[in-house]
């Protein structure tokens, strides 16, 4: 009779540990006997072991899923805990996203007000070079708000900021959007590590062009990072408490003497 390869047989026998213990104890001998029977008559020896291990993997996952479901159904406390966990996760996620959006929106101030004020003055005839403060900031390190005026074709005319000794220019799509809708608020990253909350406003009149006001997102993103970590730690702690609570209540329930 054609005997199975001893190494693969031993490996399969060990792999039966993937099954839930109750099932393994009850059926291990029968499964191994069926394997021997099947092997002795197989017509595809090359496919025999791969298909056997694939079946073991698929069926063991299925058995664990079914066992978990059955256990949960027998103990409603776990169903309630999972439901509560899902609700808390959704609520916590929604709150975190809202907070993050509020932080990001807050980063557009005071640029919106600055931009409006400069745009009014330029539209009334003032020259940007005369309006803007003389000092220049370096965008790589400064947290100060800045303003840049670009011509209609996107060429920098006046600026209070520079990056690598030049005035940065945003992608042309942002100009197109501002030209169409008068205003565009974006997160602008002119180079890795330099991210800004930028507000671009289109200006008409004697000096047509665009006023870009911006400031570094460094502090805001630090706060967002803190919020993300805080949210995750809180969520993890709440889920642990929920799991421990469910386990405690379940054990207390199973120890309670049943009424006759």
């Amino acid at each position, binding site marked *: 009779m054609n005997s199975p390869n001893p190494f693969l047989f031993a490996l399969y026998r060990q792999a039966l540990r993937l*099954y839930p213990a109750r*099932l393994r104890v*009850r*059926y291990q*001998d*029968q*499964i*191994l*006997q*069926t*394997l021997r*029977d*099947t092997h002795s008559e197989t017509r595809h020896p090359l496919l025999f072991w791969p*298909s*056997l291990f*694939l*079946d*073991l993997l*698929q*069926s*063991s996952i*299925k*058995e664990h899923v*079914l066992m978990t479901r059955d256990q949960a159904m027998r103990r409603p406390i776990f169903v309630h805990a999972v439901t509560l966990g899902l609700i808390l996760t959704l609520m916590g996620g929604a709150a975190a996203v809202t907070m993050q959006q509020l932080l990001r929106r807050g980063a557009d101030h005071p640029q919106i007000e600055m931009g409006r004020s400069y745009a009014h003055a330029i539209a009334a005839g003032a020259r940007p070079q005369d309006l803007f403060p003389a000092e220049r900031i370096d965008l790589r390190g400064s947290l100060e708000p800045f303003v840049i005026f670009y011509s209609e074709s996107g060429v920098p005319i006046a600026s209070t900021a520079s990056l690598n000794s030049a005035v940065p220019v945003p992608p042309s799509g942002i100009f197109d959007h501002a030209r169409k809708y008068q205003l565009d608020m974006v997160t602008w990253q002119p180079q890795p590590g330099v991210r800004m909350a930028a507000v671009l406003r289109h200006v008409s009149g004697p000096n047509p062009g665009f006023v870009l006001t911006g400031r570094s997102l460094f502090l805001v993103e630090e706060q967002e990072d803190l919020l993300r970590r805080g949210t995750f730690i809180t969520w993890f702690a709440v889920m642990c408490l929920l799991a421990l609570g469910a386990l405690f209540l379940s054990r207390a329930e199973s120890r309670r003497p049943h009424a006759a």
Partner: protein
Amino acid sequence: MEPAAPPELRHLPLSPAVLAILLALAEEEKHGYAIMKEAALPAGGGIALGPGTLYGSLDRLIRDALVEETGFTDDARRRYYRLTRLGHRVLAAETSRLSATLRTARTRTAAREARA
């Protein structure tokens, strides 16, 4: 109040693997390997059952009282299984359900071919 559905209907529809197992045991008791061989035949459903799938399904069928161990064994590692009365009723109900589906499919296919 509506009358309760017959217990066999609660198990329908059967998965292909479960149908093949019940079909294999319909006439006589069999051990695991014999069930696998029968299920692999075209007339038995043509299902390639692995040992893991087979014994997992058998375990659930025993729990649901559709299958039982006979107690007879020619080897401690080779146990025999048979259908219970409920198992026979479930198989009959599934056969009837599949027959009705097949009749509908044949009628509709024939009508479509007649129109073409």
